[in-house]
């Protein structure tokens, strides 16, 4: 007796459909699983046997063979428990073959027949929809996640008995047994678009940093905050998601797919609708940051996809860990190669970094800082040049005076909402400008795009040349200044990049020219 059930699996965030074939034939009683199956998947046999027994079905004393096809892809995970059980019941004649035709089934079994939540639902269901499948049976905990995919009939089941009951019912009456899961996407995005608790209005002073944060948010530029301890760098970083434009539906699905394969979507949160904000401690390992493992799982840079990755105390991160960011910062994805195959995770995040200017933190305040130039260089040297090179905006967060901190005039501080309104307007201008291209934000522009989208007037060109001479800026800084100036012009509502946009952008490059070019003071 033979039966085939449709199921699926993920590799990275790309998913594939899988056929679970079950054959029950005469012979010595045995249970064999084939089809490039990994250890954890192979354990399914035992779970299926006991779960079915406890659900009131006896496995026939026969030779049972399960094949997961295509056999060329390595199968990992526990989501094939339920498909195997259903296939077995079908092969045993308990369920009709017609009832499982074109139904995608996923789920992990408990010994009592309960169905547990699985990882990777979202990408698999999306893939199924693309392949023309319109019904799927998922663990009840994953039902909302699956229901996010529009056009898919998602049935959430709590136990194998429920699944059998559903499949045994004629198609026309099925909705009465278990109604398909529905989810209100618009409501999800409405709540996701709301502001979080932390507001820029809480921050006194720091006008330069707030402005830099606004520019960074508007153009999705990477941002580096340099300042002494207690200047409020982390406070500002935490408020960054609040001024970023809300996730679009398309972006949200991309982000949710990563969370889905990581098993981080919970039953209450079917979709990630807020921009992720991750701030790993500096002891983070290379694998945890970029993803890893024998069967690679996404790292924090992928979980921060379309969101903010905040690295506080940047020089404290191991240099090897930081250098791993170089390729993802450039390619906006990370490819992890293993002998069992390679997988790619998206990693288009906004890097937000904070650091002290020197080991003691008070440079250039020579009244407090006694670090030697050598010590400062050594400290800054822990962050490699290529990383700094990819950061468009660099700004100093000065230490605040008591007067600034005590200031209670709430009206003086702009709220995140009003900053965000400007960011959204600038975002719209970018969307219009980049319509028909792959670009999304000004920060995505390469040199060719800059020539195309950011023409400079003759006067501006000359001003920039003068700026380079007098400030010793590197050639690499050139493109970054123009990109940032483009964003500033967008915030300003200007189609042309004008002088004041360039000078402001230049200010955001100046900080690092002193910090990282290794040049001494003017007299040395």
């Amino acid at each position, binding site marked *: 007796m033979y039966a085939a059930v449709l199921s699926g699996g993920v590799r990275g965030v790309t998913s594939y459909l899988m056929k679970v074939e079950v054959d029950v034939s005469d012979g010595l009683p045995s249970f064999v699983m084939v089809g490039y199956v990994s250890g954890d998947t192979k354990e399914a046999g035992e779970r299926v046997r006991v779960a079915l027994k406890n659900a009131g079905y006896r496995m026939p004393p026969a030779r049972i063979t399960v094949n997961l096809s295509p056999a060329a892809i390595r199968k990992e995970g526990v989501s094939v428990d339920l498909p195997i059980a259903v296939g077995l019941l079908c092969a045993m004649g308990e369920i009709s073959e017609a009832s499982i035709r074109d139904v995608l089934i996923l789920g992990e079994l408990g010994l009592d027949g309960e169905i547990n939540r699985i990882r990777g639902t979202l990408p698999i269901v999306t893939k199924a929809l693309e392949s023309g499948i319109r019904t799927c049976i998922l663990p009840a905990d994953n039902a909302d996640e699956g229901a996010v995919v529009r056009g898919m009939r998602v049935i959430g089941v709590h136990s194998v008995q429920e699944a059998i009951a559903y499949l045994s019912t004629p198609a026309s009456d099925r909705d009465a047994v278990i109604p398909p899961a529905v989810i209100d996407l618009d409501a999800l995005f409405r709540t996701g678009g709301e502001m979080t608790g932390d507001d820029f209005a809480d921050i006194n002073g720091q006008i330069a940093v707030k402005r830099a944060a606004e520019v960074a948010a508007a153009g999705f530029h990477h941002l580096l905050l340099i300042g002494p301890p207690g200047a409020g760098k982390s406070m500002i970083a935490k408020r960054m998601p609040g001024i970023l434009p809300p996730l679009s539906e398309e972006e949200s699905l991309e982000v949710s797919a990563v969370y889905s394969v990581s098993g981080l979507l919970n039953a209450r949160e079917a979709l990630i609708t807020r921009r992720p904000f991750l701030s790993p401690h500096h002891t983070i390992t290379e694998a945890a940051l970029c993803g890893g493992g024998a069967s690679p799982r996404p790292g924090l840079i992928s979980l921060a996809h379309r969101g903010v990755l905040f690295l506080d105390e940047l020089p404290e991160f191991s240099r090897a860990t930081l250098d791993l960011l170089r390729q993802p910062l450039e390619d906006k994805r990370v490819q992890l190669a293993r002998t069992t195959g390679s997988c790619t995770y998206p990693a288009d995040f906004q890097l937000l970094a904070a650091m002290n200017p020197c080991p003691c933190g008070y440079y250039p305040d020579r009244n407090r800082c006694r670090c030697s130039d050598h010590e400062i260089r050594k400290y800054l040297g822990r962050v490699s040049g290529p990383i700094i090179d990819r950061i468009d905006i660099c700004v100093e967060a000065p230490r605040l005076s008591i007067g600034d901190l005590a200031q209670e005039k709430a009206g003086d501080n702009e709220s995140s909402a009003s900053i965000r309104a400007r960011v959204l307007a600038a975002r719209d201008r970018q969307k219009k400008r980049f319509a028909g291209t792959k670009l999304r934000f000004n920060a995505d522009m390469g040199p060719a795009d800059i020539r195309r989208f950011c023409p400079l007037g003759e006067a501006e060109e000359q001003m920039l040349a003068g*700026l380079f001479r007098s400030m010793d800026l590197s050639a690499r800084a050139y493109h970054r200044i123009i990109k940032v100036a483009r964003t500033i012009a967008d915030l300003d509502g200007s189609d042309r990049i004008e002088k004041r946009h360039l000078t402001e952008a230049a200010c955001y490059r100046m900080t690092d020219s002193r910090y990282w070019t290794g040049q001494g003071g003017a007299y040395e």
Partner: protein
Amino acid sequence: MNKDDRADLYWLYAIPGMGLKTAERLLDTFGSAAQIRKNAKRAAALVGGEAGRQALLACAKSDHAERTYEKILARGIRFTAFPLPDYPEKLRRIPDPPFGITWMGSLPDEHLPAVAVVGARQCSEYGRCLAAHFGADLGAAGVQVISGMAVGIDGIAQRNALQAGGKSFALLGGGVDICYPQGNRDLYDSLRENGGVIAERPPGTEPLRQYFPARNRLISAFCDILLVIEARQRSGTLITVDMALEQGRDVFAVPGRVTDALSVGCNNLIRQGAGIASSAEDLLYALGMKNSANHVEKDRKTRSKKTDQRRPGAFSPGAVLTDEEAAVFSALDLQPRSLDEIAGIIAAQGRHIPLPLLMEHLVDLCVKRVVREEAGRFLLRN
């Protein structure tokens, strides 16, 4: 005067730990360095300390003295020792002169005035600016600038003295052939051309930190006036000051603001009676290179116009700057200020300049080379 060959004296000098007292005792006993070497075992008995005895015995066995001396000569290193006639008189007269010194380039001319400029390694912009001015003005006036080639005040003063066409000499803590700090390699090279680098320790000696206090006494020994620009309350520079006072040199200090940690040492020196150096002319006057009438005259009239033109912050804004730029300019100082501070100062003056516009003005001022940026903060360029 004994008949000692320079090469034999060099051999004696190059023995690790050999000081003037031991060397003189040995020379008195044996008559010459060559004799000391021949009677190394007996000589060793006269050396105090086991390490010194072993060093002498080891050196007696090693390479032929002439060859080592020729080797350093070939490398452009010169040597003199206390018993020799060309030993600098200024050194001979200090309480604790070295037995020998080696140098590259030349030694300071003892007939010309010399000023030692010393100060903090991690100096402020104020110190950096003044070190540059004093170095340049002294160099241009034909005063030899003596210092320690360190980062910060020392190096800046020497570099500017050389650039102004003057001569400058550095006293090194290690061997004369080792450039320390490495970052001042360019200064080391130009000092050998237009001045010299001098060391008490034999060539090849690593610059260990314990050698530097002793080195400091040579900085003051070679100078007529010691000028201190920026020193913290407890600073290595103050060792040099003590040495200078012991050697009878005049000490001048550049006053600073009482709130600056880097000026506490200098202000304390002034309280204790050091001369106040507000410009190189104060030193030239003390050296007798300017007569007093002239000096006071300058103080009253010309100085405020002429000298101060080159001083930081003395740039007259009205001529070149717009009204608003002038407001930004007046909010700046020699101390680096952050954008927030500058905006605050301008606001306190009752003006409001939006941040992007403030940045534009600052960058403009940078392009006009009136203002400089350091670590995200802005300060006046001198």
